[in-house]
């Protein structure tokens, strides 16, 4: 039987990908950011997950303004790095797990989540930066990936409550897959940041850390945070944190925190990272 063994959350700032690709991860600016991922890199080498369900948002790369899926799951065999205007990141292709992905997609639909199925797409920094942060620069990514894209761009985006419930349903789906697989779920994006308008540059260390505290607790209070609170407190792009709730919802009620890291700033953004495992 497949099982979800851990949850990882991380910011996915594109500049982190640039730092990796240009070998700047230990300079004065990026050093303190990447130092907070050293623990996780080592831990991932020991954990050797077979598959990562990677919850992220597409930044106008695979999906244009035409089609806006609220929840989309990648069921393809592999995905290439997207050209976001600079040329594609020089990272390995991302190998999918079509059997597990289709199983999750079908299970979620029967569980009342009306998923959009994606067979072919390119994946942008939202998906490839977290892989680089956790795995560095291997020739080939060490695990398969099921991309799960959430609309956090065009409002209304899904509620925190719905994202948490999707996580719960993903847990049920994974646990009904007959093959013995070590599956992790990652929630990406955040933390506080605003990339637009005169208020751009807003960061909120206090709120971000309260959110991290909430994720570690044995309750589901975080699912009830309303969109307006994310917008007021964490900037217009801080709403990406609802994707962390998909990860948290998939871990069950009790979790153990294994690692946590917070750093301000990276470009326009507060960097947050947490590693949790189910505690029952």
């Amino acid at each position: 039987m497949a099982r979800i063994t851990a949850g990882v959350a991380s910011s996915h700032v594109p500049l982190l990908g640039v730092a990796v690709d240009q070998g700047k991860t230990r300079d004065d600016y990026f050093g303190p950011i990447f130092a907070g991922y050293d623990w996780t890199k080592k831990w991932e080498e020991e954990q050797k997950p077979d598959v990562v369900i990677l919850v992220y948002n597409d930044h106008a790369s695979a999906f244009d303004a035409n089609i806006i899926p609220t929840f989309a799951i990648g069921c393809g065999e592999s995905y290439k790095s997207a050209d976001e205007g600079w040329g594609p990141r020089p990272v390995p292709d991302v190998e999918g797990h079509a059997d597990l992905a289709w199983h999750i997609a079908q299970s979620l639909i029967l569980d009342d989540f009306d998923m959009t199925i994606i067979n072919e797409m390119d994946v942008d920094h939202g998906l490839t930066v977290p892989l680089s942060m956790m795995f560095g620069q291997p020739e080939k990514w060490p695990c398969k990936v099921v991309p799960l894209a959430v609309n956090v761009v065009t409002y209304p985006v899904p509620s925190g409550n719905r994202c948490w419930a999707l996580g719960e349903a993903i847990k049920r789906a994974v646990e009904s897959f007959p093959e013995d697989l070590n599956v992790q779920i990652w929630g990406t994006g955040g933390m506080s940041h605003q990339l637009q308008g005169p208020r751009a540059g807003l960061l909120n260390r206090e709120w971000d850390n309260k959110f991290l505290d909430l994720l570690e607790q044995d309750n589901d209070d975080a699912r009830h945070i309303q969109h307006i609170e994310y917008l007021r407190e964490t900037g217009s792009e801080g709403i990406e944190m609802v994707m962390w709730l998909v990860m948290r919802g998939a871990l069950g009620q009790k979790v153990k925190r294994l690692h946590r890291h917070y750093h301000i700033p990276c470009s326009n953004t507060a960097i947050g990272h947490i590693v949790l495992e189910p505690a029952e």
Partner: protein
Amino acid sequence: MTDTSAKQNIHEYLAEFDDIPGTRVYTAARARKGYWINQFAMSLMKGDNREKFKADERAYLDQWKLSDDAKEALLARDYNRLLDLGGNVYFLAKLFSTDGLSFAEAVSTMTDMTFPEYRDMMNNGGRSPQGNRSIKGGY
């Protein structure tokens, strides 16, 4: 426990967004208005299109269903104006990249700071949420 069965009314939900200082939340209304601005920006993901755009920006823009306002704002790289016209920052980012601007530098042009001032603010902890959460509430 909070009652999660209480669904938000869409009008009340959207009205709250107008109370956030210096922010244009990318609502469906903005997405409709800015559709072709965003689709134009999307086209810059292809290297060939970037070259054509750079060779003659106005001629390239003339191929899209854009208002004169939108074309002027795009030519001027007036990003706050583009947000008002329904542009979204993740689409407009293709234009930042085409211009060779970092995200932070492009974003700084939407504030009242120069890029060095903006960068200093970020390195010193970013813009404080204090006084920046609500227009009506002033908190």
